[in-house]
């Protein structure tokens, strides 16, 4: 473990001079502080309560390296990969990232009109770092771990998206993350600021352009001002050699609405951390999650909702289907602070365990310090209902189709929350082809 920390420290030192905004004193100090925190903390181990079911050894056993600038001669290839991985009939604005670097030449940065500013975080840090300094000041110390510190120490790029007050984005904005394998370390840091009354749909979608090991260690911070609304998607359909640690940290002001859907169908080791802090009265958040796994996939969904103000509501539903040797982990934490009266919080995790070698570890958690609250959580783990199966078979549907139907019905509670038809259809077809191939290899 010591030398892997050293590996990244060395990388940091060799890159430090060229990191964006390096000339600015506070940015430099910030990065150095983050690095020393990373050195102190190291990568999490299963002895850390928050990581007890997920070992990151496969990640720390490899040496991932941050890639250099992307040369123009790769543009043709990138362009064809973007086309290959785009969702059919999906009308959206698109930002393209290659191994964590925002490709301005492939991205629509200006087409969105005056109300929306999209910039590369590298450019912002070079040109007007003070405009985002306040967001860097938010500490999150309590929530950080080795991965987030690593990201904050030397992420090179990312998108800064700012929605002006009252602006409503007509089309969804898609952030497409392509990984090209090659043991690349992709670290982007994104910042999304929605000013009062603005509205947008934002999609983070991760795909593998080529096979080969890759590590994506992303962090997206979303700040919602009063009455703003953000629909967020985290869609992961990478190949089975992609490692990913993904953070989405959200703060909500009063009467804002944040809705998140996390759909994980790809990757070999994926950890998603969604942390929502509702700091203004009357805020609402929804979290929906779906993971359908097979092979040796390991997916860990870690969610935290902090009710920090009165009259906030939250709703969470995660559903999982586990096949073959896969392992699912769910940790949902709801924290209701002392003055957050009239809180209404719901959380639920249901898992379909379909194989003898699969495993689910689930840990829903309530921490409540206020009294006038309504909080509940539920978790179930089970298998396909034999009676339903029999019902379908007695009506002439063969077993394999019946199982598919029931699995689809099970995950439909989450899938139907995907409000974009083309995206939903694409996910459904990936899911069904996965289910069929899983069964053939059983």
């Amino acid at each position, binding site marked *: 473990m010591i030398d892997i920390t050293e590996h990244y420290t060395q990388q940091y030192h060799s890159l430090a001079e060229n990191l964006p905004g390096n000339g600015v004193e506070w940015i430099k100090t910030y990065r150095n502080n983050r690095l020393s925190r990373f050195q102190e903390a190291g990568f999490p181990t299963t002895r850390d309560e928050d990581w007890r079911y997920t070992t990151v050894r496969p990640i720390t056993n490899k040496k991932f390296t941050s890639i250099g600038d992307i040369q123009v001669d790769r543009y043709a290839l990138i362009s064809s990969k973007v086309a290959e991985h785009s969702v059919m009939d999906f009308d959206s604005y698109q930002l393209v990232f290659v191994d964590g670097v925002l490709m301005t030449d492939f991205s629509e940065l200006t087409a969105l009109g005056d109300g929306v500013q999209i910039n590369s975080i590298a450019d912002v840090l070079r040109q007007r770092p003070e405009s985002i300094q306040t967001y860097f000041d938010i500490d999150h110390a309590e929530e950080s771990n080795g991965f987030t510190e690593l990201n904050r120490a030397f992420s090179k790029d990312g998108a800064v998206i700012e929605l002006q007050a009252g602006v409503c984005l007509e089309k969804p904005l898609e952030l497409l993350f392509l990984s090209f394998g090659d043991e690349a370390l992709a670290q982007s840091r994104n910042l999304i600021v929605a000013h009062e009354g603005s509205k947008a749909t934002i999609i983070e979608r991760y795909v593998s352009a080529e096979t080969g090991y890759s590590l994506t260690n992303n962090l997206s911070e979303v700040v919602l001002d009063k009455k703003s609304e953000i629909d967020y998607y985290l869609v992961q359909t990478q190949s089975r050699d992609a490692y990913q640690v993904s953070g989405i940290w959200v703060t909500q002001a009063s009467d804002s609405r944040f809705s998140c859907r996390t759909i994980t169908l790809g990757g070999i080791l994926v950890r998603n951390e969604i942390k929502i802090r509702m700091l203004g009265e009357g805020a609402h958040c929804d979290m929906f999650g779906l993971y359908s796994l097979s092979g040796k996939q390991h997916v860990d969904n870690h969610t935290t909702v902090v009710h920090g103000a009165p009259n906030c509501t939250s709703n969470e539903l995660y559903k999982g289907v586990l096949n073959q040797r896969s392992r699912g982990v769910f940790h949902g934490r709801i924290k209701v602070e002392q003055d957050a009266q009239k809180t209404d919080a719901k959380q639920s995790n249901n898992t379909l365990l379909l194989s003898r070698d699969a495993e689910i570890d689930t840990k829903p958690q309530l921490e*409540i310090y206020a009294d*006038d609250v309504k909080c*509940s*959580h539920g*978790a*179930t*783990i*089970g298998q396909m209902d034999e009676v339903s199966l029999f019902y379908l078979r007695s009506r002439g549907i063969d077993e394999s189709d019946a199982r598919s139907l029931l699995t689809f019905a099970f995950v439909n509670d989450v899938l139907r929350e995907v409000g974009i038809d083309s995206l939903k259809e694409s996910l459904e077809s990936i899911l069904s082809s996965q289910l069929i191939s899983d069964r053939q290899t059983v």
Partner: protein
Amino acid sequence: MTSTEKDLTSLVQREYKEGFVTDIDADTLPAGLNEDVIRVISAKKEEPDFLLEWRLESYRRWLEMDAPEWAHLHYAPIDLQEISYYSAPKQKVLLDSLDDVDPRLLETYEKLGIPIDEQKALAGVKVAVDAVFDSVSVVTTFKKTLSEAGVIFCPLSEAVKDYPELVSKYLGTVVPTSDNYYSALNSAVFSEGSFVYIPKGVRCPMELSTYFRINAMNTGQFERTLIVADEDSYVSYLEGCTAPMRDENQLHAAVVELVAMKGAEIKYSTVQNWYPGDENGVGGIYNFVTKRGVCKGEGAKISWTQVETGSAITWKYPSVVLEGDNSIGEFYSVALTNNCQQADTGTKMVHIGKNSKSTIISKGISAGRGQNSYRGLVKVLKGAENARNYSQCDSLLMGDKCGAHTFPYMEVKNPTAMVEHEATTSRIGEDQLFYCRQRGMSEEDAVSMIVNGFCKEVFKELPMEFAVEAQKLLSISLEGSVG
């Protein structure tokens, strides 16, 4: 504050009526812990060599361990060198009958309402009692009736001498010496406890009960209970505890081990009423207890029922290891924290055998500045075909400074298992209160009724007399916390 609230608040100042001190000559070891202390304890109890070795082994393991810090509890570190590990009422001769017992001791138990006088007890309900005062067992009642049925019920220190082969066969098999920090400490210094053995096919003719009392100052109580139910036997065991009111915190670190063989059933009920400290959180017992049972054979059943109203801090997870096929584990709990009390309690159900079933019903009530956490683990191992678990954890909040927390863990490795967990947290509904008051009930009565209703699923698992006591205890502990 409304006038009703004021009335209710004045009620909270009710005293802990078990808080008196008995003035009795005691033989108390000086504070501190080292190998010599352990040798002295062992010598005083005239223990066989195997037990001394076992104690020393535990002590050495304990030295290498750290106090657990993962629980949702806040307290200053405990200085274990300031505690005396042995205190016994001075008594020269072995007791043959109740008449030989120091009358002041009998008086103590009388005050506490514990029926150790067999004549009186006969008139009422038959319960065999083993009364433990600080570090020693004072008296065990109904020994004769029990021995006729073949049941062994005696202080552990006697069992060690009279039935060494039974004790050495089972002691430490359920909770190994190195299991955790407090159980290791207990294994090194335990002074008293009860031993129960129910032979094959015997249904224990009466409820067995142990009553624990901490009296001396600066002592810790480290009792160890071992219950073995042989094939197809049945026993119901009750445990109660109190301590005097003191400003310092006293440590209680007990270990309870249950072994249920094929077809046997053990029902273990606890009403825990250690001194909880005053309303500012000064004093009170630190209750760090390891309780675990093993369903060894097919169809064995272990049921834990606990009503936790006392202690400044409760750290307790009565668990069941379901080894046998078709075995059953149950956990019913009511935990109440008022004033500055903190509780981190729950259970572990480990499913190993096929068709094993477990039920967890946990009711937490937080009032005042109390912090109440449920922490539970349901683990289904690969071979546990058709394992079934149902867990329900409900929390009731009274007052805006208390907290209720739920930390369930579920780990499932078998696809035929069905595991369900449900938890809710809320306060007493305004509508429910209004409904009762509208029908002429006082607010206090209405709250008491609603709380009792909330706990009913657990109370109904308690033996009759205990259920009545538990209900009373609950309403007293809650007095004044409404508002």
